[in-house]
């Protein structure tokens, strides 16, 4: 749709014609929307200002929506701009998620390095599965990505089971900045308990235990405020080992308030020297803190995707989508641009996967199955493939259906269906309603508005700008 300007605004230069925000009012609305989005957690119940205007669950909801907006925007670059169907997007997210989690757990990467590293890793693997696009296209390519959707989780589940934990959930440490304020170093002897405090959820204690000359020892009794011996769930723990397999450093980050205690004991015949180093770090363990990582990143990536189609690369993508043979005749390297689209799409998926891992603090392969790939494709179609805002509309629409419409529908159906059909078990309705509503929405959109919500939004915007005239 051509750019519609209000009456009296004319493009006189090329820059004006190409600009994203043609008038000051456009710019103002966008900036206001962004600021309003950033203010949401501050107004929430457990926000630092304790205003309590917005329920806490919406903060987490907006963060999760933003994660999927990133992933679906990646799909948009591939499907909407370049016209290559992908049925394996969830698998690429899985690479981003597991890649970053393993980097953080095993290689000692921080979140800030794991994010770009896992995004690049995912991009590289995306390139690998984009290779068949040299010979096949369209629906055949969808088949290649379908193969990716099965091969990647299989590889994560079986050959890499030592790293990923296979079907079991994998815990992921919360992102931190720091530690930057070291305030105490203690020598520790065998069996002596050391206590540490956790209070503020944002500014946490980091307890780093450096062990030298360790031969055989065991770490016991990490005790929480109530006196229970902890599993390591409340306190995230990172372990570094030397080449012989002995632990050289343990890092505890306690995010729940209270007094913790840990004791290191050497086993019979073993010995060690330990130094406890206490310091402070900025933690992103809470939903509100994660919100400020995820949402600006999502906005930035949306903005990037918006601008990609205004570049030479983006125009090449669109020409490959519209007619790849004609594009080739125009001198566009079709294969190269397809691979670039695969790479970009996988990078977006990798970032989304990484954010998902660090937002949930726990990962499971069930979050990356074929259904999720199809769901993301459906979100894109419903939102509007090929529109920069399509991803946002689609994800928000589906999430509203899932969070608001289905809970409203479920008790009514569970009451009504078993009466009508005696063989229906109300238990099954809970899990079955999701695919029905979601498949139904997709059918309705494909049949009635295949261009998606974004197209309606463009029409609405044009009508608003041209009011009170129709043209």
């Amino acid at each position: 749709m051509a750019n519609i300007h209000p009456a009296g605004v004319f493009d006189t230069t090329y820059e004006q014609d190409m600009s994203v925000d043609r008038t000051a009012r456009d710019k103002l609305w966008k900036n206001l929307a962004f600021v309003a989005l950033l203010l949401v957690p501050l107004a929430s119940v457990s926000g630092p200002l304790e205003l309590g205007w917005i329920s806490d669950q919406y903060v987490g909801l907006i963060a999760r929506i933003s994660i999927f907006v990133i992933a679906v925007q990646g799909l948009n670059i591939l499907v909407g701009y370049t016209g290559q169907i992908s049925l394996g997007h969830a698998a690429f997210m899985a690479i981003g998620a597991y890649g970053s989690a393993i980097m953080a757990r095993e290689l000692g990467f921080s979140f800030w390095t794991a994010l770009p590293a896992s995004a690049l890793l995912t991009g590289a693997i995306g390139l690998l599965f984009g290779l068949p696009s040299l010979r096949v296209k369209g629906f055949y390519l969808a088949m290649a990505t379908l193969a990716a959707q099965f091969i990647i989780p299989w590889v994560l589940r079986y050959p890499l089971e030592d790293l990923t934990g296979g079907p079991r959930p994998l815990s992921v440490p919360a992102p931190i900045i720091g530690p930057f304020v070291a305030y105490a170093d203690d020598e520790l002897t065998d069996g002596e308990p050391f206590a540490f405090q956790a209070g503020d959820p944002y500014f946490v204690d980091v307890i780093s235990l450096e062990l030298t000359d360790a031969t055989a020892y065991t770490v016991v009794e990490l005790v929480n405020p109530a006196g229970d011996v902890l599993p390591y769930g409340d306190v995230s723990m990172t372990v570094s080992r030397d080449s012989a397999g002995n632990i050289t450093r343990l890092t505890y980050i306690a995010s729940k308030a209270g007094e913790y205690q840990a004791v290191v004991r050497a086993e019979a015949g073993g010995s060690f020297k330990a130094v406890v180093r206490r310091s402070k770090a900025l933690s992103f363990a809470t939903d509100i803190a994660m919100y400020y990582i995820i949402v600006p990143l999502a906005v930035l990536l949306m903005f990037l995707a918006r601008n990609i189609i205004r570049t030479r690369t983006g125009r090449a993508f669109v020409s490959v989508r519209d007619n790849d043979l004609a594009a080739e005749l125009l001198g566009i390297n079709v294969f190269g641009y397809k691979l670039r689209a695969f790479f970009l799409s996988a990078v977006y998926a990798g970032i989304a996967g990484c954010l998902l891992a660090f937002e949930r603090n726990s990962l499971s392969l069930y979050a990356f199955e074929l259904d999720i790939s199809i769901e993301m494709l459906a979100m894109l179609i419903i939102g509007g493939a090929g529109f920069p805002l399509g991803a946002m509309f689609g994800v928000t629409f589906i999430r509203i259906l899932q969070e608001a419409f289905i809970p409203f529908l479920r008790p009514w159906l569970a009451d009504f269906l078993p009466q009508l059909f005696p063989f229906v078990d109300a238990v099954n309705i809970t899990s079955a309603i999701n695919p029905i509503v979601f498949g139904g929405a997709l059918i309705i959109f494909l049949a009635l508005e295949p261009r998606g919500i974004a197209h309606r939004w463009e029409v609405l915007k044009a009508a608003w700008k041209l009011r009170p005239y129709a043209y």
Partner: protein
Amino acid sequence: MTEFINRNRRHLTWALYALVAVLILLFVGDQLAGKRAARVVQTLISGVLVGGVYGLVALGIVVINKASGVFNFAHGWMMVVGGMIFWSFFTVSEISVPGALLLSTATMLMIMSTVSWRTLREGRNPLITVGGIVLLTALMTVGGIEFQWLHALAGTFAGAILTGLAVERFAIRPLIGQPLFTAVLMTLAVAEVLHGVTQIAWGTVELNLPIFVDPHTNSRFRPIRLDAFRDLLDGVAIVRVELIIAFVLAIIAFAGFIVFFRYTSVGLAMRATSEDQQLAQSVGLRVRVILAITWAVAAFLASIAGVLQGGAVGLSLNISYVALRVFPAVLLGGLESIAGALIGGIIIGIVEQFGTLLNSSEQVGTNLAPYLVLMLVLIIRPDGLFGEKRIERI
């Protein structure tokens, strides 16, 4: 150097393929070296037997693809629907008359209104509709438990036709004139809806479908032991009778479809439509009706495959994953080839069984090997063994 490569590109490509094939053979041979010959033969036989049913599933996908160019992702869920309806009519001793009446009414209305709802009122059509409803209901209910096979077959027939026609009418037909990509996405959406509906109606628990039972003992067949080849094979190969019956029935269904496709006038019309829709329309064929028939036939084939698969390995929602494993078979055989469907299905069956033999704990056979074959097919020969070469014009 470059010139040499360019001049001998064809030979070099084939040499590369041969090299890869030799490497794969060496790898598989090495892995198989530790196994006894009996296990290998057993795996080969059960692979072929399993592949027969896969071929039937692939046939359903190929038929729709030939006729309308749509790749049907919902085929697996059509299998589940067919198998579940069969189960309902087969194992429930008392079939509710209102339920049967509802099913047959919906089916007959759907059949009679394929062209448009108006035709329901014309001529003798109301009479035919009512007669069909009465006949189908009678077939589904009369006679009690004695006639459970008749009930189940009639019910599955009606249910399959209803599913196929409904999918075509409400999901595919509104998309005429849209790009094929949209129709493919629509089959994905249909798959989701069928998933939800089957889960609500029949739940996620695995159901027991005792169709392949020994009539004398009324229990499962004892597996056949190939004792005669004991010395030759260094052990006893065991073949499950359920798989043999399923294979034979699948081949019969396959042959039945081919007879229908080649020797009936509807089959001729279907072939004409799949050649060229516009040409078929211009010689007076009703393309819309024929497409609807194609979907009904494909849904019926899916139901048969669902029943066979359910009887052989157990009936649950997981049957839909069989269709995902069959996609490689379809591409391997070629998207337009009926014979290719069977051959592709059998090859995938063998690959799957050997994958399971090599590594049974890690689901190599079901979750990895077919998709590796898929990647290989896409890279080496995207049109499949017997598919048509696609020529494109701007």
